[in-house]
């Protein structure tokens, strides 16, 4: 057990160091990590408390407050399921320090346990904050007895186990299916996309016209039916049912132990297959396609992007969703989809908001320099200027953002936007499309991480990716704020376009001057 804890400890600190783009963890930098964790906890915990109080107050008014813990438990489980599904390849399979770990005098079982524990610890932080928030709010609103706090405290440690198992099993099956096929990464990406989409669109089958309290109750009932452990948890914490708590704990722990044992059996085999790929040694030299240096870099960058499932799944989901929405639009009622949102925003405000939000999540350049990792020497030694390299990275991001232009035109036609509205939406989309890649690149050059061992850290947890995504989403919020502040869609949109163009000029100037110097010094 000591070795497992030591391995988890090393991996967590390495991950935290990677997240903050620092190599050796000196005391000052350790303090930065602590400060970051505290800030993250406070912001997330505060937001969740606010949200729990909002929902809890309504539930209390309808005498359904006992639903609140199960709703948040379900929310935490779904988040664990999604985030683990993304992380399975890269944490459990296909991680870069596999060779180093396997060469250590530690049993396979302990290595597997350390990798699963790593997934557990990563998820536990989120579950702890979520359930902490709901415990506080439920305590205030429902005034439960001591047994609620005791059972909820125990349940927090058990909650992540089953979602981790489900996501890991699904992730493992997807890895197994995909590695046997030629374009394994693409197939893995598509399979995960499909799974997440099915999960996302499932709630739409629930009647959303009910009042929030009734809907929440109906949702909790449905969750209990789909996921019986949620029912056990609910009974245990809200009714103080000891038997439910014991069954909940026993099922979670036994399933986790069984899963760890099972995965240990295929760990080495699957990792070997995931990491080596196919090997034929039967190539005959044929015709070669010639490209310009920029096009060659662009093609290389594009292939690099699609070779990393975690990169695609985290930066391509917005555009995939937008495309699906565009294709489905003729068959769905937009006002139904908007639900309660339609009271606050009009359709012509809602459409660009959705498109801009999807674009904000499609920033590939936030990690494109870091993703070079140990390959950076190639880019630095070839006879191509830094500006051309930047252009190739921006072009890939622009290509991935291009469906937003198409979507804005098609949505405008379907929803019968006026010419002016359509033009404005297009201008918004094009301006923002030019901003996102250049901004991401500047941020990545400012916070590069070239020593990563796990792509997930660069794509999801690095300083550059957090700053880029939150800034881009923040700008979408600014767009909404401008519309509300001016009380006029046209004035707000035009002000936003002006703001983006000012930012674009600054960003491109920074990129071509300071950005080039930063790249040279990498």
């Amino acid at each position, binding site marked *: 057990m000591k070795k497992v804890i030591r391995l988890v400890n090393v991996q967590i600190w390495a991950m935290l160091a990677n997240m903050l783009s620092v190599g050796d963890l000196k005391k000052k930098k350790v303090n930065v990590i602590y400060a970051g964790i505290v800030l993250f906890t406070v912001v997330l915990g505060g937001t969740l408390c606010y949200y729990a109080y909002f929902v809890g107050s309504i539930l209390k008014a309808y005498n359904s407050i006992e639903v609140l813990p199960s709703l948040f438990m379900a929310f935490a489980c779904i988040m664990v399921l999604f985030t683990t599904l993304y992380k399975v390849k890269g944490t459990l399979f296909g991680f870069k320090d596999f060779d180093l770990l396997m060469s250590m005098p530690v049993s396979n079982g302990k290595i597997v346990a350390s990798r699963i524990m790593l997934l557990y610890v990563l998820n536990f932080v989120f579950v702890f904050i979520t359930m902490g928030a709901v415990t506080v709010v439920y305590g205030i609103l429902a005034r439960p007895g001591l047994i609620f706090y005791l059972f909820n405290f125990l349940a927090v440690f058990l909650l992540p186990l089953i979602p981790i198992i489900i996501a890991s099993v699904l992730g493992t099956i997807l890895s197994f299916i995909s590695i046997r096929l030629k374009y394994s990464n693409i197939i893995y990406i598509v399979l995960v996309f499909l799974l997440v989409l099915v999960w996302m669109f499932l709630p739409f089958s629930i009647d959303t016209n009910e009042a929030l309290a009734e809907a929440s109750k109906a949702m909790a009932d449905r969750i209990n039916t789909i996921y019986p452990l949620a029912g056990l948890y609910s009974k245990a914490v809200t009714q103080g049912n000891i038997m439910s708590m014991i069954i909940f704990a026993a099922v979670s722990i036994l399933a986790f132990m069984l899963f760890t044992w099972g995965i240990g059996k295929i760990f080495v085999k699957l990792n070997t297959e995931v990491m080596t790929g*196919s*090997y034929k040694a*039967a190539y005959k*030299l044929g015709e070669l396609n010639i490209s310009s240096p920029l096009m060659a870099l662009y093609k290389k960058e594009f*292939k690099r992007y699609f070779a990393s499932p975690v990169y695609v799944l985290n930066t391509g989901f917005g555009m995939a969703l937008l495309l699906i929405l565009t294709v489905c639009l003729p068959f769905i009622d937009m006002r139904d989809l908007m639900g309660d949102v339609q009271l606050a925003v009009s359709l012509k405000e809602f459409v660009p908001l959705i498109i801009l939000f999807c674009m904000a999540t499609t920033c590939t350049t936030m990690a494109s320099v870091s993703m070079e990792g140990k390959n950076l020497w190639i880019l*630095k*030694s070839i*006879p*191509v200027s830094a500006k051309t390299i930047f252009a190739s990275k921006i072009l890939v991001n622009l290509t991935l953002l291009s469906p937003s232009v198409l979507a804005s035109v098609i949505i405008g036609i379907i929803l019968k936007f006026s010419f002016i509205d359509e033009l404005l939406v297009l201008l918004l989309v094009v301006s923002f499309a030019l901003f996102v890649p250049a901004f991401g690149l500047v941020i990545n050059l400012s916070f590069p991480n070239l020593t990563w061992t796990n792509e997930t850290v660069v794509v999801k947890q690095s300083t550059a990716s957090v700053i880029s995504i939150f800034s881009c989403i923040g700008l979408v919020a600014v767009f909404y704020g401008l519309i509300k502040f001016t009380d006029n869609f046209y004035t707000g949109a035009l002000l936003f376009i002006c703001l983006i163009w000012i930012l674009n000029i600054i960003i491109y100037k920074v990129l071509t001057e300071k950005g080039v110097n930063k790249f040279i010094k990498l």
Partner: protein
Amino acid sequence: MLQIVNFSKTYKGGKRAVDGLSLEVNSGDIFGFIGHNGAGKTTTIRAIAGVLNFEEGDILIDGVSIKRDPVYCKKVTAYIPDNPDLYEHLSGIAYLNFIGDIYEVEKSDRRHLIEKYADAFELTSNLGDSISSYSHGMKQKLAIISALIHSPKLLVLDEPFVGLDPKAAHTLKGIMAQMCKNGSAIFFSTHVLEVAEKLCNRIGIIKNGKLVAYGPTQEVTGDSSLEDVFMELVETKQP
């Protein structure tokens, strides 16, 4: 072909890896750069290749400063690092074609040169496979082929023989000799002193960032072997 003028490099934290290094490599030279671990060989090589940024001194390739026109310098240079981390998501042929595109190698020459060098290093049948499936030696061979297909005027190699099988090492030595006959210059680091002694017409020995011996191999070694000279130099305490 290569002129290093008073080049120095100090890393963050104050470590002076290279201190006032000056040397010259002419067309037709095979220059062996020798030194103990941490002497400053890789730092110098990375600076020549344009991979490492530096402030003090200058490096001229084909008469052009790498600081002033890095793209030209890189165009006529090929660099092979000691540990060739290549794009694992590409196949061998896709990587070679990528390099061909970047160096704008003509279509007709490209096919011929890839075929010639891939055959020489017995890698042709593996070119369709993903680089991720290659062994260390195969990656090293691919890096060497990629360096040769654009016919560089200056070939810079860091420990090129590490990881190569004896046949591939022999092939590389033959190609290096042929390149020099054709007017190219080669600058390489090695710990294998016998290879340096046999292959190089000029040698430089670096110790703690400073050049302690430099010149034609015969002049540096005199009546002793290169190994004896090297051991004597590295064991002598600097004032």
